[in-house]
C-alpha cells in the first residue's frame, strides 16, 4: 500500500527493539494493537469511519445548529423545492426535510447501536455458556439457535412491532432480541477452540468458577469476533428499522425515522418531488455502507473468519 504513514515504526513487533532476540514474546495487547494499526492503514475503513462520524454529528449536533421546523405543519409551505430557508425543501405538510433527516437519523442510529449491543450481549453470553459447558446442554442450546434462525427475521420483528408499537426502546429490544443468534454461534465456535487452551486449563486449576472463566478468560479472547459482528449488526438493525418504517410500522409523528420519510415520499415520486426520496435514501445507504466498510476492515485486520446470515 502506498499510503503507509512514514512515521510509523515497522509492523513486526517480535523483532522490535524491546522484544528479546528470536523470542516470540510481545506486549500483551500486541495482537489488538497490530490489528488497529492495520485498520488505520485501510483507506476504505477510514472512509467508513468518517461517514459514520459525519452522521453522528449531523444527527445529534446538527439540530443544535440548524433549526428547521419538523413539528409544526405549515400548509403555506408544502412541497417547496430546495431553496432559501429550506436547503432540502419541505414535505407534503410543510415540514423541513433537512431537519427531519437529522431527527430521523437520531432514531436510526440509536436503534442501530442499541439493538446491536443487546444482540451481542445476549449472544456472547449464550454462546460462551454453550461452548464452555458443551455436551448435551450445548447441542440443546444450539438447536434453539437453529430454531430461531429458521424463522425469517423480518416476519417476527414485524409481528411483534405491530402488536406492541414502535418506539426507539421497543424497536431496539425487538431487533436486538432477534439478532443475538449469529453472534451466539460465532462466540460458541470461538469458545470451543479456546477452552482446550492452556491458559483456560491454568485458570481452571487455579479454581476459577465457570462465571469467572467466561467473563475473564473466554469473552476477552473472543473479543475480535464480537467486535466484528457488532458493526454488521448495526448495519442490519438500521436496515431493519428503515424497512419497518417504510412498511408503516415504525415511529410515528412527531417522532420520525428514515423509512417513514421514504414511505411518505413515495406518493410524490410521480410528481417529481425528488427531495422527498433521494436524500433520505442516500442517508440510509451511506450509513449502512459505512458500517459494512468498517466491519469488513475489522474482519480483515483482526483476521476473523465468519459468515453473515
Amino acid at each position, binding site marked *: 500500500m502506498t499510503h503507509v504513514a512514514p512515521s510509523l515504526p515497522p509492523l513486526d513487533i517480535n523483532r522490535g527493539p524491546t522484544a528479546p532476540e528470536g523470542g516470540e514474546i510481545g506486549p500483551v495487547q500486541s495482537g489488538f494493537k497490530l490489528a488497529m494499526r492495520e485498520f488505520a492503514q485501510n483507506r476504505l475503513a477510514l472512509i467508513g469511519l468518517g461517514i459514520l462520524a459525519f452522521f453522528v454529528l449531523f444527527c445529534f449536533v446538527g439540530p443544535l445548529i440548524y433549526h428547521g421546523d419538523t413539528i409544526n405543519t405549515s400548509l403555506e409551505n408544502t412541497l417547496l423545492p430546495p431553496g432559501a430557508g429550506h436547503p432540502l425543501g419541505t414535505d407534503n405538510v410543510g415540514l423541513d426535510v433537512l431537519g427531519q433527516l437529522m431527527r430521523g437519523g437520531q432514531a436510526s442510529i440509536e436503534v442501530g447501536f442499541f439493538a446491536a449491543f443487546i444482540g451481542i450481549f445476549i449472544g456472547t453470553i449464550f454462546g460462551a455458556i454453550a461452548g464452555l459447558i458443551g455436551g448435551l446442554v450445548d447441542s440443546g442450546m444450539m*438447536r*434453539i439457535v*437453529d*430454531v*430461531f434462525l*429458521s*424463522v*425469517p*427475521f*423480518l*416476519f*417476527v420483528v*414485524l*409481528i*411483534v412491532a*405491530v*402488536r406492541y408499537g414502535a418506539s426507539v426502546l421497543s424497536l431496539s429490544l425487538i431487533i436486538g432480541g432477534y439478532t443475538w443468534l449469529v453472534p451466539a454461534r460465532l462466540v460458541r465456535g470461538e469458545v470451543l477452540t479456546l477452552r482446550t487452551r492452556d491458559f483456560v486449563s491454568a485458570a481452571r486449576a487455579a479454581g476459577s468458577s465457570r462465571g469467572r472463566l467466561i467473563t475473564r478468560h473466554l469473552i476477552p479472547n473472543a473479543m475480535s469476533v464480537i467486535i466484528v459482528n457488532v458493526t454488521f449488526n448495526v*448495519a442490519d438493525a438500521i*436496515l431493519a428499522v*428503515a*424497512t419497518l418504517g*417504510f*412498511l*408503516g*410500522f415504525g415511529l410515528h409523528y412527531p417522532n420520525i425515522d428514515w*423509512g417513514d420519510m*421514504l*414511505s411518505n415520499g*413515495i406518493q410524490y*415520486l*410521480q410528481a417529481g418531488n425528488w427531495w422527498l*426520496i433521494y436524500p433520505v*435514501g442516500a442517508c*440510509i*445507504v*451511506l450509513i*449502512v*455502507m459505512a458500517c*459494512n466498510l468498517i466491519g469488513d476492515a475489522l474482519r480483515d485486520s483482526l483476521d476473523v473468519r465468519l459468515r453473515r*446470515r
Partner: protein
Amino acid sequence: MISYLIRRIGTSIIILIGISFFIFFLLHIIYPSPAIDVLGSRANTALIDAWNKEHGFDDPFIVQYLHYMNQLLHGNLGYAYKFNQNVTTLFQERWARSAYLTFMSLLLAVLVAVPLGIFQAIRRNTVGDNVVTSLAFVTYAMPVFFLALILIQVFALSFPIFNFEASQDTNVFAVMGDWHSMTLPILTLSLVTIAGFSRYMRSSAMDTLTQDYIKAARAKGLTERMVLSRHLIRNACLPMVTLIGLTIPALLAGSLITETVFNYQGLGLLFYNALNNADYNVLLAYTLIGASLTVIGNLVADLALTVADPRIRLA
C-alpha cells in the same frame, strides 16, 4: 453416509417441531383469541368466554397447539377472520404468484452472479473487478424498497419502458407472460440477491483458482476456456449451493417488500395486509410456512452438496 443422512434429517425434523412450537407460542401470546375480531368490540365478557369455549380458545396452550398441528397436517391452516376466508384458500390463490416472483429472481441472480464472480476472480483488482465490487457493495447496503423506487423512477417514469405496478392478473400463466409489468419486481429482487451472491462467488472462485488441480489442468495444456468450464466453475459453485439454502429467509423478506411496493397479489402482500388487520391465522400460517421452507431449503442444499461433492460423501 447413511448415518449422516439420518442424523441430518432427524435434526431438521426436531428443528421443524421447535419452530412450530415457538411460532405458535409467540402468536398465542400476542393474539390469545380472535373472539373480539369476530364478535366486535362491544361484545361482553360472557359472550367472549362462550365463544372461546365453543371454539376451543379456552383450552390449555398445549391442547390448542396440538389441535392446530393436527389440523395443519390435514391441510387446514385455520380461518382468517378478518378476510373471512379459509387461510388455505387464500394461500392457494396466491402462492403460485409468489413462487414465480421468487423463483425467477433467484434463477436470474444465480445466472448473473456465477459468471460475474468468476469474471471478477479472473480479472482480480482490474478496473472491471473494482467497478463490479463497488456496485455490489452499494446495492448490498441498499434497502430493497429504495432500490425498487430507483428502478421505478428510471424505468417506469423517466423512461417509461416498464410498468410501475406488477401484473394484477389472477391467472399465473398470464402473469408469467406479462413482461411489461413483471420485469421491475423481478429485477428488484434479483439485484439485491446478486449483490449478496457475487461477493461469495468472487471469493470462492479466487480460492479455487489457487488450487493445485487448476495448476495441473493448465500444466497438462488445457486451454484457458477448458480450465474454466471444466475445472473452475464446478468447484467454485459448490459454496453457492449452501448459500442459496441460507438465502431463503432473505428472499422471503425481500419478496414481502417487493410485493408491497409493486402491489403484487402474492403471499407477501397478504402477510402485509394481515399485519394491518391483525389477522392472526394468516400471520401464523405464513410464518410457519416461511420457516419450514428455510429448514427444508437448508436440508436440500446440504443433501445436494453431498451429491455434488464426493469429498463430503466419503468423509
